[in-house]
Every structure is written in C-alpha cells, then in structure tokens.
C-alpha cells in the first residue's frame, strides 16, 4: 500500500482509531494484522518469504541467547545471517550476478547455462532483512534480550510504518515500545499528523513534480542538451531527497500518532559541508547500520591507513549494492568511497588553502563554498544512481562539461533551454518548490517550526495548515508513483 494512495487514506485512520480503542493486550495483534494487510497489498505471496525469515531469526535469537558455547552462538548467528543474506542473494542479486557472469563468459566464448529467475523483487526486502539482522547481531552481542513473544518479534520486523522503506530500526529502540501502553496524547498525535502532512507535501508536490522532468530526461538522455541534463541532475538530487525523506516523515509521523518514536533518518543532507557530513545526515539509519555492523567489525579506523581505506571502499561498495543490483549502484557506492578517501587525504590541503586565500576567515563564505562543493559531488554521484545504464551515466557526465558554454550562449542570445521536457512555467514551478523546501528547512533548523507556529494566533496556524493540505490536494501530482526506495 502506498502512503500516497486513497487506500492508505482509509487504512491509516481506521487502524489508528482501532489501536486506541482495543485493550492494550490486543494491540500487538491489531498492529501485526494491519502490517500484514499493508504488506500484502503489494504482492500477497511475498509475505511467505518475510514469514520464513521472521521464523528463522526469532528462533536464532532464542538459540543464541540460550547457547553457552561461543562456537554455538556464532553458528546460530551465522545461520540467521545466511538466511537473510540468502534471501537477498536469490531475490535481489542472483540475476545481476548471473548477467555479469554471462557477459564475462561470453568474452571467452563460453555460454552461461544458468537460468534467469523471472520474479519481482519483494518490496522493501533490503530494509526488513537489515532490520532483522540487526536483531540477531544485537542478541549475539548481548545488547538485546531475545524476544520470546513471536507476535512482538514479528511486529518488530513488520511494523507497517517502516516496513518497506525504513528507517531501519534497532531492537533496543523499537521492541520495548510494543509492550508499552500508549495512551492518546493530543500533542503527540498532532505532531505526528503535521509531520505526515509535510512528508506528503515533499512527496507529491515536490518529488513527483520534479519526477515529471527527471523521468523523461534520464529515460532518454541523448535527446537533451547539456543544460537540460544539468537541470535534470539538480532536480533529481531534490527529487530523491524529497521522495525518501517524505516517505520517512510519513512513516515516523504515522508511528508517532500511535505513540511510537522512530529514529530520525534525515537531517538536511544538502546542508552538509563534506561527504562525511553528508552521510551523517542522509539515510542515517542505514549509515549507522553499516558503521556498527560492517565498518567497525572490519577494524574501522583503528587499523593501518591503507587498511582503513580498503574498509571504507568495502562499506561504500556494499552500500551501493544494497541499493540495487546493477553496476550503476556499485559505481555510485564506489564513487562515495573515493570521495570519502580523497576527503580525508585532502583535509589538510583544504584547510591550508582556506587560510592562504583568506576564505577561512570569512566563515559563512567558507561554509557556503563547502556546501556547494559537497552538493555538486553528491549530485554528480546521483547520476549513476538514477541513470538506466553506466553508458547513459557517462554520457550525462560528459555532456555536463558543455553546460557553461551553452549557458553563456543562451545569455548572449537572450534565449532559454529549448528542449526542456516541460514548459518554462512548469520548470519555474519546480524551482519555486525547491526554494520553498530550502527556506522551510532553513527556518526549521534555526527554530523548530512547530514551536514557531504554536506561538501564532489560531487563524495564522490554521492558515498555514490549510495552505499545505490544499497544496497537496490541488498542486500535488497523483499518478500512483511509488517511492523510489521501495525498489530496494
């Protein structure tokens, strides 16, 4: 079920109302039933896969906790990880590796005989398998008690607000919340609804509006001029941010309405002053997962410098693969690894040059330049993320080199991009919604908007709420567009 669908508009109030009406002892059952219904709305049969991994991880947790020998504990943990990674390997990566092997084999004149699996990727697979793995790992580390209640454990994996696209929760934060009694809290409900409203605005008004341009341009980049490609690259950076953070806002908000506190997943990522800073602000739950369960176990930064660089590359390449089974994602991940390493190596050079040029003394200018540089690098990396193929991505990146020349010509001839996939008015709409987003986020970063609004008279507060709701209804794009991160 999509958050931006009529079905969810009915599902959400019904489930929330029932949640507060049924006795506390039955709430887990209601939420589990609702979560199954929510998931089965996409493709019912895939609940069996989810059910199987839940069953394995539930028992793995109990067995790990019960085992006294370290070897046994490790074996049970391995079993759980193999089961989860195995599901990912079959459903997400098998065809990718098969195609890659076929391509390689053909180079040597050998025909690959492995069959191609014709099945759709279960929705949100990477999210719930990672969340499930964090449970068994935490039980193994002794930081989380094994959950004996099968229903509550299932709910930990399947809790509908964050089931298909995160945030990827940790058991310590979520499981105990299913046991707590959440009474109806007016402020919490209102705060949750406002967050959902803002998330929906980001999705249907901003992300889906930008998608009207980016889908066409990235779908056939050879048809467009360098300037149009450049516009699409910038638009995509905001599209994916609004799409994913919009989803997370709706997820966190809908959970908050029922009294649950989910972790924050974004913190103004495009205000980041470096790539490292970007990853502390973007998809925080995934970055944290990779830090705690991959980077640190690999040795993290407490190893030799070359080894640390290797660790960084491993983490980012796997992070790329986590996003999608395609070479474009592998390159996207690897590119971040390279950015990150260069960032470490060049740290001194950057600070010295800031001092040398005097920019370092003007802190706002220094920060602005760093934000622009980071945003540019991130946007260029998104090209690999969004392009249909590596060849398309290269073509776009090469074309972008011609942007300054084209823009100069346009200025000289007082003209505008002639091949934009939409009218200049629609392009202006896109730019305006991006500016609005940034202004709102900037204000919110200075002083919480909810606090600001709470201090205003009711007519003004309600005016703002009406403006957002009516903008969603009359200015939103309703084409049943899925959230980009659902495919992962």
């Amino acid at each position, binding site marked *: 079920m999509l958050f931006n669908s009529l079905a969810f508009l009915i599902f959400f109030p019904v489930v929330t109302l029932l949640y*507060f009406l049924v006795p506390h002892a039955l709430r887990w059952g209601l939420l589990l039933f609702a979560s199954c219904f929510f998931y089965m709305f996409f493709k019912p049969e895939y609940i069996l896969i989810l059910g199987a991994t839940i069953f394995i991880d539930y028992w793995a947790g109990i067995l790990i906790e019960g085992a006294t020998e370290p070897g046994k504990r490790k074996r049970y943990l391995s079993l759980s990880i193999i089961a989860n990674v195995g599901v990912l390997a079959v459903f997400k990566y098998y065809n990718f590796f098969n195609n890659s092997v076929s391509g390689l084999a053909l180079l040597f004149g050998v025909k690959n005989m492995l069959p191609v699996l014709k099945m759709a990727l279960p929705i949100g697979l990477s999210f719930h398998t990672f969340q499930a793995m964090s449970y068994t790992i935490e039980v193994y580390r002794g930081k989380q008690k094994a959950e004996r209640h099968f229903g509550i454990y299932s709910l930990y994996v399947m809790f509908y607000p964050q089931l298909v696209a995160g945030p990827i929760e940790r058991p310590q934060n979520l499981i105990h919340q299913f046991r707590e009694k959440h009474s*109806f809290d*007016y402020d919490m409900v*209102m705060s949750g609804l406002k967050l959902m409203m803002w998330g929906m605005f980001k999705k249907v008004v901003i992300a889906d509006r930008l998608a009207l341009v980016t889908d066409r341009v990235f779908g056939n980049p050879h048809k467009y001029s360098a300037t149009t490609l450049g516009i699409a690259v910038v638009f995509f950076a905001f599209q994916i941010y609004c799409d994913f953070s919009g989803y997370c806002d709706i997820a966190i908000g809908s959970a908050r309405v029922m009294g649950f506190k989910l972790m924050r997943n974004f913190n103004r990522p495009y205000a980041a002053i470096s790539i490292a800073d970007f990853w502390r602000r973007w998809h925080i739950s995934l970055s944290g997962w990779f830090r705690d369960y991959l980077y640190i176990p690999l040795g993290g930064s407490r190893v030799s410098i070359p080894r640390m660089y290797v660790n960084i590359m491993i983490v980012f390449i796997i992070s790329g693969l986590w996003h999608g089974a395609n070479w474009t994602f592998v390159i996207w991940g690897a590119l971040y690894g390279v950015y990150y390493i260069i960032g470490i190596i060049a740290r001194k050079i950057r600070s010295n040059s800031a001092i040398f040029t005097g920019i370092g003394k003007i802190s706002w200018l220094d920060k602005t330049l760093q934000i622009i540089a980071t945003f540019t690098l991130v946007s260029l990396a998104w090209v690999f993320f969004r392009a249909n193929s590596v060849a398309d991505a290269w073509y776009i990146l090469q074309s972008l080199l011609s942007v300054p020349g084209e823009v100069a010509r346009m200025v000289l001839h007082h003209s505008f991009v002639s091949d934009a996939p939409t009218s200049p008015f629609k392009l202006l709409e896109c730019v305006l919604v991006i500016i609005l987003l940034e202004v709102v986020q900037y204000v919110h970063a200075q002083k919480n908007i909810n606090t600001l609004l709470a201090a205003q008279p009711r007519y003004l507060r*309600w005016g703002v709420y*009406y403006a957002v709701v009516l903008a969603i*209804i*009359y*200015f939103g794009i309703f084409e049943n567009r899925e959230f980009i991160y659902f495919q992962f």
Partner: protein
Amino acid sequence: MKRFIIRILLFMILPIPLLYGLNYIVDKGLQRSNYIYYSEWNDLFAGKINADLLICGSSRALQDISPAILDTSLGLNTYNLGMDGTHFSIQYDRVKMYLLYNKAPKYIVQTMDFTSFAERNSMDNQLQFMPYLSNPIVIEYTAKYKDHYSWSERYFPLFKYNNQWPIIEEGVKSYLGHGMPPIKIKGYFAQNKKWDYTFDRYIQRVPYPVGVHLAGYSLNRFYDYLAFCNKKGIKVIIVFPPVYYEFLRYCKNRDYILGIFRNCQAKYGTTFLDYSNDELSRSRDNFYNSQHLNKGGAEIFSSKLANDLKPLLK
C-alpha cells in the same frame, strides 16, 4: 480524543462550502467558455448545433475542414466535431452523445487516418469532460476507457482541476463574463503555421517504414458505427484528408488500411473519398507537418471537398 476529533472535523468541514462554491463557479464558467477543450462540448450539450452535415474525426478533421466553406458551397448547416489527438472509439462516442442532445444530421463526413484504429484504450484528453462530470451520460460513455474518471475526480471539489491553473482561471473569468474570445469557427481550428520540420526530424530518427497495429476493438467499433448510422438514416462519407506525400512511404500497411475504408462501401453504403495522395500533398506549403494542413491548405482542401461532396449529397 474528543477535543482532537472536534478540531479535525472542524478543520475539514470549514473549507468545504468555499471549495464546492469555487467548483460550481469553475464548472459553470467552463460550460460557457470558448476554451479549446470545451467550446464544442458546450455547443453539443446545450443542443445548439443541430447541423445538417457533421464533420467528425481526429485533429485531421478539426484542422483540415472548414465548415464555413462547406456551408457556402453546399448550402447546408455544417459543424466540425473533430477531436484533437483522438482514436476512433471516442469519436464514435461523441457522435452518440451528440445525437442525445441534437437532431440527427443528414450526413457525416468521417475523416480517417492511418492511426484511427491504433491500439489505445484511453479517452485521449481527460480534461475535455471536466465541467460535465455530474452528467451521467458522460460517465456512462467514458466508463469503458482506462483513464475514466475516479470517484475523487467526480465528487471531491476541484480535485479534477488538480494542477490545471489556466483552466481554473478561464472558468472563473468566463463565469464573470470575461472568458476568452472564440478561437474556432463552428468547431474548425485553423492553423496559421508554416512547415515545422517535425517530420524531417522523425525520419532522421526512424528512416524506415513502420506498420500501424490495428486494434480489433476499434475496428469493430468502426463497423458498428457505420451500421448505427445506416440504421439512423445518416449517410456517412469516409474522407481521408491529404497527407504530405513523402509520409506515405513510411507507413507500411497504408494500402491495407485504405482498403478497409474502400471495402465499407458495399456493406454499409458509405462513400470513400481518398485524398491521401492528392495533388495538394505534393507541396509543403499546404502543411505544417506531415499529417496536418495549415490554414491555406485547409481552405483549398475544403473547397475541393465541397465540390466532390456536391454530387453525393443530392
């Protein structure tokens, strides 16, 4: 919880009168507007057309045949019901709806082209019926298309005009009596344009003939339409307006498609006038693209068609 429910209900109820009021104003305004999508539907639903001769078809009817020229030459009341960018099925629906509100014409000039039976199950322009969604006839006729109107479009105030600011603006202006002036004359939409080179760009991209897949459903609806007109005593003249001659060689199954129209004569008593390779087709001066005549070309063609129709309408 009580406080919350009261506030939420209040929040939702407060704007409803305003939104329904605005919805009413926009609908009523568009129902009397000359906006490109609505002027003919407005005439049709108001029962104002009552033509002796109807010109039906796609944009090639809309832009290629001038009723004013036919009126003068044939001494009949002619009206152009051509629909831009449409396939045959929705054109047939328009004729059926026309007959519910207007007297039956004696003749229909049905223009056809190579894509009339293309595989499409949409009404092509969803916006065309927006001010008329409370009309059950419209809902009944559009229900079969995949882009038929949803519950929210029909009942939620103004939702159907989502992102259509120029249309809302025109609706309000027309309601206040300041709508746009007419841009069509009796449904005819003259195109005062020069050759736009889209065809040249197309053949650069696709320099080989392409076959048009004919949808069985559309074809059956066409035969049904001819039988329906026959039964109603309406004489149908099938017209294939000129196309720029170079285009012909890029349509693989053109002879087969033209054969369909030719073969209707015996079974349905229709006449087929084929101008696909007319002498008008030889000059780019008469067209603005390979499929559509410009104003000058349309005027020449309309005169020619009027002359050819004369003996047939006796």
